[in-house]
């Protein structure tokens, strides 16, 4: 396994990494000349995909202003003849905002846990290089592909034993644990890219591990930490199985559960149900509007940047 840890990819001949690039700087280079003739085929393909993405989203959003009884007769694509905000009022009445609040709490908890744990663990893995940390790293690597479903039964048993059943912590703890392997991997990647010289300079200053961590490692892994935060936040925001099995009462309901249960409650009121979906997406959408770059860069980071 040690060989795996230290193995180079064929592409990388050199060991010493260049100082980490800020997100986006690499891409600023225009590698397709501006004066090049336009890529017609690519454009057409992109337009086709645009239709695939936008049509359902359009049908989704437009339906939320439609009255339930007009939905089928008027068809999904026509703007409502008699638009209404009533669906939104109903969704709010049904406690949707509370579910979003719960989800936000869960998300904050997961992100905090994952960022702290992944950062300290990765720091140890990259810089400590003892058999213990290698073992820990190996464990995380093997855990990379473990599906949360596979262990839901024992997780349920453990949560019940910890007397955490039906609390938000019951969702936070396993969600964070299952986000850890990918996050450790990402952070180990960005911490390895910090050049040896910088570490040595810190050491010459007489900095201990804590100072090195705060002054060098954290600032230099900012983009990795961003990726980790985005990744774990999405895991928490979208989590389904853990809340399904580990909570039950309505005041611990997170938004995915709320939607799942609305599906049963709303009966055949498709616009009502779709309104709940749209409302559930508003918080993330706002984040996206404000921080589109960081969100996209964060997710690109999952692929290794």
């Amino acid at each position, binding site marked *: *396994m040690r060989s795996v840890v230290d193995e180079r990819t064929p592409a990388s001949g050199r060991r010493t990494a260049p100082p980490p690039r800020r997100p986006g700087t690499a891409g600023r280079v225009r590698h397709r000349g501006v004066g090049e003739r336009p890529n017609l085929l690519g454009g057409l393909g992109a337009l086709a995909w645009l239709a695939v993405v936008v049509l359902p989203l359009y049908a989704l959003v437009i339906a939320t202003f439609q009255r339930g009884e007009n939905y089928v007769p008027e068809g999904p694509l026509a703007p409502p003849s008699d638009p209404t905000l009533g669906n939104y009022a109903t969704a709010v009445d049904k406690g949707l905002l509370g579910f979003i609040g719960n989800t936000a709490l869960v998300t904050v908890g997961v992100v905090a846990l994952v960022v702290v744990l992944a950062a300290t*663990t990765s720091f140890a893995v990259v810089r400590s290089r003892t058999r213990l940390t290698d073992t820990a790293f190996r464990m995380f690597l093997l855990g990379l592909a473990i599906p949360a479903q596979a*262990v839901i039964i024992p997780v349920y048993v453990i949560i019940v034993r910890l007397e955490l059943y039906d609390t938000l912590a019951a969702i936070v703890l396993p969600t964070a644990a299952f986000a850890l392997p990918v996050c450790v991997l990402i952070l180990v990647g960005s911490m390895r*890219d910090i050049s040896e010289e910088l570490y040595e300079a810190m050491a010459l200053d007489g900095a201990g591990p804590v100072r090195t961590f705060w002054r060098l490692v954290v600032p230099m892994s900012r983009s990795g930490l961003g990726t980790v935060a985005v990744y774990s936040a999405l895991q928490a925001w979208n989590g389904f199985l853990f809340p399904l099995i580990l909570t039950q009462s309505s005041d611990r309901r997170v938004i995915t559960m709320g939607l799942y249960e609305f599906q049963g409650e709303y009966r055949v009121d498709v616009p009502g149900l779709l309104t709940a979906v749209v409302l559930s997406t508003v918080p993330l959408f706002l984040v996206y509007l404000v921080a589109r770059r960081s969100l996209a860069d964060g997710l690109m980071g999952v692929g290794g940047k």
Partner: protein
Amino acid sequence: MSAPARSRAAPRTGRPGPLWALPGALFFGVFAVLPMLLVAYLSFTHWNGLGTPAFAGLDNWTRLAGDPLMHRAAGLSLLLTVSSWAIQTPISLLLGVWSAGRQRGRAFLSAVFFLPLLLSSAAVAIVWRALLDPNFGPLAWAGPALGLGSLDPLGSGGSAFWVIVAVAAWQFIPLHMLLYQGGARQIPATLYQAARIDGAGRLGMFWHITLPQLRNTITTSSVLMVVGSLTYFDTVLIMTDGGPGTDTTIVPYLMFRAGFRSWELGYAGAIAFTLVVVATLIALVMVRLTGFGSMRSTREGL
């Protein structure tokens, strides 16, 4: 020149002790590793969720080996994985490379392409289920309008499975597109400039520069797809509940059904442990293939 040699040569000052890894490792141990061991244990017991598990020897495993439903589920999971990969990879690769260009229009379109990522799996499943409802959704309007009579893609075995594949593609292509976009932007422009001087066409450059340069991204994205398909569950539960019949009962759903519908937690444990083993094997292969362990130092070599 090997890393450990360098490490030993470097001063120890400022290096963290292994204790720094302890909180993370312990945490992962309790909520992920321990459960995996417990799953292995459960698979040798009969347990209905109440009271204490009773030792069952190999009962669950012999049953698993002979369960036609499990064979079917494994086949469906495999088909889901393969077809998801085959559909998502080309589309997301092409779109990703295309959108890596810095033209204003492309930037705008990538921003739109991102949108499905803002919806949770539950939301995606609910939206598509509503849109495909044969009586109260758009199909109730579209069927007669197009003269096709009543359409019920989720109601017939064959089409329901492909609906799941299509919804997975709709949901995840934006993510993979983003990965390829990121990958393509890291390809040094000099490579293209040199190729252009040599008179290479667009197709040639794509084939000889873009694809080889993206191979790490391709591996990463493929691995994510495989793992994702293995754990695809929320969508199946919400859209089809494993049906019609058992036509969309993939392995994770079968495990859920055995565990939380039939309350045969021992048998569910055997299915789950099978998943764990397969997932671990995939993780191993992935670590070998990607050199993930070496910390994606891919760009260093460029």
